[in-house]
């Protein structure tokens, strides 16, 4: 067993890292790239819809864009960006040195990444998937859908495995790795919501994997699960998809709620109002989220009994969500609020999300949904939830945790400008879409005729998109500017915050905590500021710290899965250069070979000696941290 980690080149270091902080940053970068890609597609689509009967994109290209925009935003942008924060923050907030399975954590990232890459490759093989992000059969079946759908099926299948194993890792970490005194009812709300979200992933991504497998069998091996003329059922796909798809919304929005529940107390200088109610409301939302999938299918012809049951069940979700909204408001009530960029995003989230929530209740009224369904009203509703909810909270989280992650602040002036441009653009884009839907505009249309009264609002909506794009450009400028000129952060706690991640020095050492902290309350750092000397009491003496070795195996295993998926897609290609089975089986062999190596190779990790840790601590004291 080595006592000292060997020096490595930078690239090799990042490819082999199993450190949750570095993996978090890789998630952040990968998620941002996909976010920008899907955002540019959205911009192109809105330009196409700026005027009636525009010829900027063809119907086929437009359909490929809507499909990829939705798929990328949900699976490859929102999920990894939330995973970035979960990876960075969860171990710090619970006082752990890493996640429970660092190797699996790296594996999860690389599988997600190569799955996303596989999906993106579709552009180079005759066009992207074109059946919408829901890939409803028969449009996505062998008879009607092109090769792009095969990339959709296998790309998501691969990247879904990554998401699933990461979620399992978070579950085990939160259950097992908490510092002494950190009981479940002292967990910060971000950890709670991530925990429940990970449970949802566990139960929702498995039906997705099953559904994708069935669709793959239909498409590649001529099975007939979804072919009505052969006894299959096309509605079956919708049930399987939405049993995953509805919880997916909560998978994304619950950690977003968690971020809001961290930022609002920190900048209001108050503890979260109704902590227990918040925890149980989260659980109830998660449970109900599984029970209401069929509200996406009111117009499919399930009959009045099923429609009524799912309608009423859906409405009940408003109750726990309402509890959360009012608890956030009353956290701010009576506080001393600092409106910096993070707080601007977090506080503006509350009323914005309410607007998305109330249209959700309206949509739940099944017979009225016969009007809203598949129109721009729905498009407006879920963008209020996803952009007004998830994206705003991602930006809040970015500005909040940025100094801890990168050691410098983001520029506040640019940040506030970004907020206003983005926020105004967001409402401009999506508010009028409610009206467009009611005025008879179906969703997923690449054009509309000029004499239908839809011109003005479509124009306004597109202008809003320009504002949102300008906002994101301002963010990029901010990140680059701050990297060079931003205020350096060396103090542990630049925000005067409340939770444990702000007790670690900045930059965070690879072992996070030199000594595991003793947690005495909810908001442990705040408790020590009031009742102690402002620093966490150690729960153990300074000892050797055991750390895992990095490994290239996760990277290679993911490449193996990538080729396995690509080989299967080649089965549907007209002239594959080599036999698809060689690629598919070769890829799988690579993955299983790595698993075998991992199983037999003894790797005990290494120790950071106690003297080294003591030296680090002394250094920190000198720096006044």
């Amino acid at each position: 067993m080595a006592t000292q980690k060997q020096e490595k080149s930078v690239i090799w270091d990042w490819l082999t890292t199993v450190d949750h902080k570095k993996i978090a940053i890789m998630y952040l970068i990968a998620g941002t790239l996909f976010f920008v890609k899907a955002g540019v597609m959205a911009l192109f689509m809105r330009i196409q819809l700026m005027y009636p009967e525009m010829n900027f994109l063809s119907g086929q290209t437009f359909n490929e864009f809507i499909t990829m925009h939705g798929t990328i935003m949900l699976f490859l942008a929102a999920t990894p960006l939330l995973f970035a924060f979960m990876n960075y923050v969860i171990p710090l907030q619970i006082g752990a040195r890493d996640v429970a399975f660092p190797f699996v954590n790296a594996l999860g990232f690389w599988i997600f990444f190569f799955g996303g890459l596989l999906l993106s490759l579709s552009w180079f093989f005759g066009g992207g998937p074109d059946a919408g992000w829901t890939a409803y059969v028969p449009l996505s079946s062998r008879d009607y859908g092109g090769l792009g759908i095969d990339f959709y099926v296998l790309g998501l299948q691969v990247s879904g495995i990554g998401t699933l194993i990461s979620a399992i890792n978070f579950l085990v970490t939160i259950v097992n790795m908490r510092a002494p005194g950190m009981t479940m009812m002292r967990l910060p709300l971000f950890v709670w919501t991530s925990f429940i979200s990970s449970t949802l992933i566990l139960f929702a991504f498995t039906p997705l994997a099953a559904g994708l497998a069935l669709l793959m069998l239909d498409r590649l091996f001529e099975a007939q699960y979804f072919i009505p003329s052969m006894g299959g059922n096309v509605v079956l796909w919708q049930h399987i998809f939405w049993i995953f798809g509805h919880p997916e919304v909560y998978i994304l929005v619950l950690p977003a709620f968690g971020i809001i529940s961290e930022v609002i107390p920190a900048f209001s200088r108050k503890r979260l109002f109704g902590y227990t109610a918040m925890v149980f409301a989260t659980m109830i939302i998660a449970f109900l989220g599984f029970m209401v999938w069929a509200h996406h299918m009111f117009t499919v012809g399930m009959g009045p009994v099923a429609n009524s049951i799912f309608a009423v069940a859906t409405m009940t979700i408003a109750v726990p969500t309402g509890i959360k909204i009012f608890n956030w408001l009353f956290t701010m009530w009576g506080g001393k609020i600092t409106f910096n960029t993070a707080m601007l995003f977090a506080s503006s989230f509350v009323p914005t999300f309410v607007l998305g929530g109330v249209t959700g209740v309206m949509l739940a009224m099944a017979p009225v949904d016969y009007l809203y369904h598949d129109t721009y009203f729905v498009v407006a509703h879920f963008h209020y939830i996803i952009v007004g909810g998830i994206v705003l909270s991602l930006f809040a989280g970015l500005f909040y945790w940025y100094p801890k992650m990168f050691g410098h602040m983001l520029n506040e002036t640019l940040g506030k400008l970004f907020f206003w441009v983005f926020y105004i653009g967001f409402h401009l884009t999506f508010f009028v879409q409610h009206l467009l839907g009611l005025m008879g505009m179906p969703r997923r249309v690449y054009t509309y005729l000029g004499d239908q009264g839809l011109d003005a609002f479509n124009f306004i909506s597109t202008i809003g998109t320009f504002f949102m794009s300008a906002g994101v450009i301002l963010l990029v400028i901010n990140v680059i500017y701050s990297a060079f000129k931003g205020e350096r952060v060396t103090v542990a706690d630049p925000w005067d915050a409340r939770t444990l991640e702000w007790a670690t020095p900045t930059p965070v050492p690879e072992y996070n905590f030199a000594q595991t902290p003793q947690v005495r309350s909810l908001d442990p750092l705040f408790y020590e500021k009031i009742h102690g000397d402002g620093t966490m009491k150690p729960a153990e003496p300074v000892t050797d710290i055991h750390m895992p070795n990095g490994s290239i195996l996760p990277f290679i295993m993911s490449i193996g899965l990538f080729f396995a998926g690509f080989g299967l897609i080649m089965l549907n290609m007209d002239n594959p250069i080599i036999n698809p089975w060689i690629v598919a089986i070769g890829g799988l062999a690579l993955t299983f070979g790595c698993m075998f190596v991992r199983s037999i190779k003894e790797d005990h990790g290494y120790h950071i000696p106690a003297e080294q840790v003591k030296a680090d601590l002394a250094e920190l004291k000198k720096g006044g941290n």
Partner: protein
Amino acid sequence: MKLWKTASRFLPLSFLTLFLTGCLGEENLTALDPKGPQAQWIYDNMILSIIVMALVSIVVFAIFFIILAKYRRKPGDDEIPKQVHGNTALEITWTVIPIILLVILAVPTITGTFMFADKDPDPEVGDNTVYIKVTGHQFWWQFDYENEGFTAGQDVYIPVGEKVIFELHAQDVLHSFWVPALGGKIDTVPGITNHMWLEADEPGVFKGKCAELCGPSHALMDFKLIALERDEYDAWVEGMSAEVEEPTETLANQGRQVFEENSCIGCHAVGGTGTAAGPAFTNFGEREVIAGYLENNDENLEAWIRDPQSLKQGNVMPAYPDMSEEDMEALIAYLRSLKVME
């Protein structure tokens, strides 16, 4: 923050102004100007839910703006506010009130769901209730009047003031049948038969759309629902059911031969003759638009026949780029002559 406050005060106001100035979209398309009992019911309940939800939003916004105004931290104020863990009475309040509001919305939800699922004949009309079989194709609509024994494509005719029952099928992929000004939509699903009913209060041409993504030309899968007074409707039915007469004009008669020689009749039925692989042409001369969206004039018709793909991507009609000018002229004259109403 001042800017935001001012702007947000204008938001509800501007919303109201839009409604007052009648910015509701085009008549006979928009659902904000309902033209039938089903659309009216949907509209009324939408307004009910908007009122309830507006109340909730106003409460949230009011609390939010009080917070913005009152609880900012002044520079240099380092006082730590009182740490409250919660308030049981308040938390019960904002649990119970939403439940009451939801019950108010749940009652019409259930009654409405059952009302719209009713596929019994119209009690007013009894045996004469109109049943129409709708089939969605990529990217056009077929309407079979099975009791009357004829097929119509693209335009569907119904009598005013009667509940008309639609039986919904799909030929290839999912589609969704929607006439916004008259009511809700129901999907057409391959392998499954769905039902819905619609009723129009007044005569008119109502615009219909496909609401479910069905391929590259989904956006262009429009149709017209034409509501006629009962006697006019009966006349139309009679015209559609009658034997097709030979066109009297020679040019049109020539065109009929072009139509048959180029196997147009293989897909487009005229009267009872031909198949329904494409829209039936029995009353083609009376259509406002061709292909669901193009103005029905000679230029468009010619362009369509020569190259349908460029006008509606992904449709299955073969192109006739080399048809001679004479044949084209005759064919167009023939198509123009296909009328059932005088």
